[in-house]
């Protein structure tokens, strides 16, 4: 295969792993050195992901299957890069870059090993996007979760420890469900390689099929807990709002990771054969319930952190609903929505901390639940030194307005385009003419209502924060903190301007996903490199 480019596939896993290892050897007091190693790693990740993304979006048929240890496909573990995973890798790297730069203002100094855990989180997320093996997916998921436990607790304080306790307990239980699902699937299908599974599942005899479907259901529950489907979502707003701002910013990608896995497995394993459409009704109903719950939560929450947490639920729920409808045209709009909402929510989490810095404690206690604010003073890190942003309130206000527009899906930003693409495809005016059914109408109404609710909630908070707080002190915001937020928001602007090419890319991705034989054949036909094992035992070309 074309030389060095093929080895780039494994780079998104190796680079953060190496960086995390190196970071462990640097003393905690050498903050600049640590930050530089971490930043270098993330910048390399952005470059690598961008190259991979360009290769995937190009016309060349790049062979995206990487055989680890040079073992042939069903026996060894494979990494598979396709349009969807390349897009998610790029999204992860960009969100990580913004969060990391943001954390360098002050958050990375409030506890030990921030950068190490950050890198390990990236390794887990990237590995989960790339892997083509169910058990390997579990391992990468655990790497990601273990790092996220540490990151959630970063900064300490009773509130974070309490939220962390719940988060860890829920996710440990989810990991056990994951294992039960994986072993049931292995017991019935006899393989864990996703491509091999996809080929075997249509041929499973009926008595085993039931067990296999039970296994897939249990496995799905594990991901739905992570994605935050109602009623498995009560931990999410608390955990996300308790996390420190840059951590919450990068956590925005985690619930989308679960959505990615569900999308991948459904489109790969349950596209054809007697199990086709497995779980889609469940996803549809669950998604509807999640959107309703998230919308009520958005309207009810007075603290900005919780509002953002519930917005995560709304976007997860919307994606689950659209997945449940199971229509290719809808899903390409959904992919755009996935990217746009991840960027928005990540920027929003980081913006919240800047905005709340300006509110005086007395006013917050009146308006905001005590529980959320009880210990805000203990865990706030010291003010960092650096260039302060001029015209702070104006810039914060503009960013906040952009977030409100994106979350509610108003024109002209990408939130609108994404929702419009989803809705128009469902209404039957898109490329594929589908007459709207009752479920589709429910979905459309809910998507629009959740947007309205987000708009109401954001306007209310915006008025309270930016207009009515006359005596409120102007927050001291560093350039290094506001630039990442503006960077993420400007990415949504790029997505808006370049919506045509972006939609084209996603259409191609969805069309590739819709025929699993592409994936199956790519993995099965991946050839072992000859003569390498004899010479040096290493993978080479």
């Amino acid at each position, binding site marked *: 295969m074309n030389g060095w480019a093929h080895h780039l596939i494994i780079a998104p896993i190796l680079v953060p792993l190496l960086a995390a290892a190196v970071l462990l050897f640097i003393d905690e007091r050498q903050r600049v050195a640590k930050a530089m190693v971490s930043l270098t790693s993330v910048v390399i990740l952005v470059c690598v992901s961008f190259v991979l993304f360009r290769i995937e979006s190009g016309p060349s048929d790049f062979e995206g299957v990487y055989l680890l240890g040079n073992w042939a496909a069903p026996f060894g573990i494979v990494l598979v890069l396709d349009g969807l995973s390349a897009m998610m890798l790029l999204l992860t790297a960009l969100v990580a870059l913004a969060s990391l730069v943001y954390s360098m203002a002050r958050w990375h100094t409030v506890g030990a090993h921030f950068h190490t855990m950050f890198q390990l989180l990236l390794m887990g997320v990237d590995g989960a996007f790339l892997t083509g093996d169910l058990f390997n997916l579990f391992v990468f998921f655990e790497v990601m*979760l273990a790092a996220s436990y540490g990151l959630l607790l970063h900064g300490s304080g009773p509130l974070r420890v309490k939220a962390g306790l719940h988060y860890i307990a829920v996710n440990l239980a989810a*990991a056990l469900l994951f294992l039960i699902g994986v072993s049931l699937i292995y017991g019935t299908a006899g393989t864990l390689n996703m491509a091999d599974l996809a080929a075997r599942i249509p041929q499973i005899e009926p008595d085993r099929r039931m067990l296999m479907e039970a296994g897939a259901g249990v496995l799905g529950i594990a991901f739905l807990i992570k994605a935050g489907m109602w009623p498995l979502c009560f931990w999410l707003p608390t955990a996300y709002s308790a996390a420190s701002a840059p951590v919450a910013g990068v956590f925005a990608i985690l619930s989308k990771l679960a959505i990615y896995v569900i999308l991948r497995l459904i489109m790969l394993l349950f596209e054809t054969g007697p199990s086709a459409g497995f779980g889609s009704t469940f996803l549809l109903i669950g998604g509807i319930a999640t959107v309703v719950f998230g919308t009520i939560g958005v309207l009810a929450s007075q603290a900005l952190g919780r509002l953002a947490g519930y917005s995560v639920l709304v976007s997860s729920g919307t994606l689950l609903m659209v997945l449940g409808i199971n229509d290719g045209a809808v899903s390409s709009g959904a992919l755009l929505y996935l990217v746009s909402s991840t960027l928005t929510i990540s920027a929003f989490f980081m913006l919240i901390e800047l905005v709340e810095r300006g509110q005086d404690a007395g006013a917050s206690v009146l308006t905001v639940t005590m529980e959320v604010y009880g210990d805000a003073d203990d865990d706030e890190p010291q003010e960092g030194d650096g260039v302060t942003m001029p015209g702070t309130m104006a810039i914060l206000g503009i960013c906040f307005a952009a977030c409100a527009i994106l979350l509610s899906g108003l024109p002209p930003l990408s939130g609108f385009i994404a929702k419009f693409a989803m809705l128009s495809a469902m209404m039957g005016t898109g490329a594929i003419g589908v007459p709207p059914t009752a479920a589709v109408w429910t979905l459309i109404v809910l998507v629009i209502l959740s947007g309205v609710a987000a708009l109401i909630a954001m306007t209310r908070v915006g008025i309270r924060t930016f207009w009515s707080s006359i005596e409120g002190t102007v927050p001291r915001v560093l350039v290094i903190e506001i630039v990442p937020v503006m960077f993420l928001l400007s990415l949504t602007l790029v997505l808006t301007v370049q919506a045509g090419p972006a939609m084209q890319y996603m259409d191609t991705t969805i069309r590739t996903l819709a025929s699993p034989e592409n994936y199956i054949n790519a993995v099965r036909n991946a050839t072992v490199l000859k003569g390498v094992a004899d010479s040096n035992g290493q993978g080479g070309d």
Partner: protein
Amino acid sequence: MEIILSIAIGVMTFCGVWLILRPRTYQVIVGLSLLAYAVNLFIFSVGGVKTNVPPVLVDGTATASLADPVPQALVLTAIVIGFATTALFLVVLLASRGLTGSDHVDGRSDPS
């Protein structure tokens, strides 16, 4: 053999689920450990219960008489990961105990 194994897994799962729904953090961690044992045994059993057969393929052995090596490899990974995460959870539990002065999962002080 299969019956005993199934009953053992079932009882451990039952106890584990009951314990993680209890309000004390210590009960939750014991429950999670029990659930992890149950799941490990479950993974181990999906390869089929066989006694006195090696998982190693050598010339001349019929493949039907072999134990499946994959669940054994999986369970090994699962044990290691489960152990590490339980240890981590224990640390968080102690931190929560220290910060709130209570071993209630919500940090409440009343003994209800």
